[in-house]
């Protein structure tokens, strides 16, 4: 039963963060929920592997990233039919001019690899080593991608404005 409780608590405590990670990676909110739902389903099918993982968050993020990259290669066809429609959510329309929108637009200037390491490192708070494990790349590659990404973001006037207001 401990495992069952762990699973319930894990999903309950991580759902919001995972969906928001997916949005920061470039999904729409609705697609992000689909994506995370599919990723969690894949984790649940092999939940024993998740339990044995040294770092659950890193493992689940790896599944999420794999789901996302796979969907980008073949467009997103991973939605599953469900008996009930989920509660619909949408970005606040005023977001066109607000901070969140500016951040998302700045992230969109990065290429996918750069954007992924930024989200893992600075939103999911994975270490560079964990990010390397998640992405299956060398830690040095994480560092170089982060370095280029940060340089691009540092030159972004919108973010400079936001930093000034923080």
């Amino acid at each position, binding site marked *: 039963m401990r*495992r*069952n409780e762990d*699973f*319930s608590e894990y*999903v*309950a*405590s991580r*759902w*919001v*963060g995972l*969906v*928001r*990670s997916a*949005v*920061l990676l470039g999904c729409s*909110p609705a697609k992000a*929920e689909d994506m995370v*739902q599919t990723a969690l*389903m894949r984790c*649940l*099918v092999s*939940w*024993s592997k998740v339990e*044995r993982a*040294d*770092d*659950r*968050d*890193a493992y689940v993020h790896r599944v999420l990233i794999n789901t996302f990259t796979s969907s980008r290669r073949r467009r997103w066809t991973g939605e*599953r039919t*469900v*008996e*009930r429609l*989920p*509660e*619909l*959510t*949408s*970005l*606040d329309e005023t977001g066109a001019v*607000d*901070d*969140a929108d500016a*951040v*998302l637009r700045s992230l969109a200037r990065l290429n996918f690899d750069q954007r992924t390491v*930024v*989200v893992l490192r*600075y*939103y999911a*708070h*994975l270490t560079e*080593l964990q990010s390397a*494990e998640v992405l299956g790349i060398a*830690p040095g590659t994480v560092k170089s991608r982060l370095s280029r990404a*940060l340089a691009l*973001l*540092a030159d972004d006037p919108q*973010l400079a404005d936001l*930093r000034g207001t*923080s």
Partner: protein
Amino acid sequence: MIDHDLSDLLERAADRIPVGPPPLDDVLVQATRHRRRRTGAAMMSSAAAVVVAMVGSALLLSPNSTPPPPVVTPSVAATQPSVAATPPGTRLVGLGQAAIAVPVTWGTNETLCGTPKQDTVVIDVGAIGACLTSRPEGIDSVELTQGPVRFDFAADTTSDIGGLPADRQATTCTASPLEQGSTCYGTIFIPSLAVSFRAESSTDKATVDEILSWIRILPDIVGVPGYQSANLQTPQGDARDRYVAAARAEGLEVRVVTEKRPAIDAGFILDVSPEPGTMVPPGTEVTLTVVAEPEGPADEVRVDINSVGPGDSMDYQGLDDDQIRAGATIELGVGDRIWTYAMGKRSPTLAGELDGTSLTIDPWTKGPNYPHSWIATKEGTTRLTITITADGQPVKIGVVTVVVS
């Protein structure tokens, strides 16, 4: 741009992204379907695969031999006017004013991997693990839910129970994909109360109809609501308020007590007493146990320790958060690896300080737990102090004694 700025910007942006509640039920159903596709019909014997199923769905059906059906027969008529008295040998379980009188020999949530293993009521269950298991022969159960009817439901007839319209889906039997035999099921849904009863039996079809005949409407008492659905909506911290509102709507009083649960949102519900489904008079006080507000940074992170022997021995042993904070001792052998990891706020700042010489830092710098992973290199005792950092200051989570022998 400095790290703190970017993290702050992303947090602020993310906070503006609305997120619906986790579709846990759907995820579980998908996982089960995935499992069923993967396993196929030929691999019945292995019970090793671990997947997830929805509680009470009885997706894996039972074998069917021909034992004498363990029929229990509370003498309650479906159309009987409401009476508070419980028939001898039965107990009432219900939601709202709808209840069912089940034999006292029936348990509550006596399921394994989502499949009833004894005669049981199934009520207010969250996610549970599932495995390749089957429903034993001669097992009867009823699942109570409040809200939308789970499973595919279509009313075949409408009758009357205690003066309320009740939609009835006809009893049907499904052959087991695992072995010979079948499980029969039927559902009654009471729209005005939004309560459904799904009876399942691996005894026979008649037993399903009999179970559903035990339903009654009791206007003078009410079922203690379940709390799992309140926990699965967001924001999580509002679960307590959602439950209190639901209980008060049923005329119940609620007393809230708190328990510390690191890294879980304050307000997340841990328990309800009396247990959900208990029929009580309006005005009864229900005790709700929820996660307490954090008193400091240490309450916002959950830390675990795990260890494993050399090679792929898979002989994991560890300490959970409670044990770590209580100052537990863990015994290792020379060559074992031990590491700590965290969930929750500031988990990236997790660190461990050694006082002793029996452990050395694990040189696997690419490992996910570096630098808070160590190898037991020689016999002796080392005290491991686990900390996180908040506002630039170390915050002690616990001190663990590691004995290497």
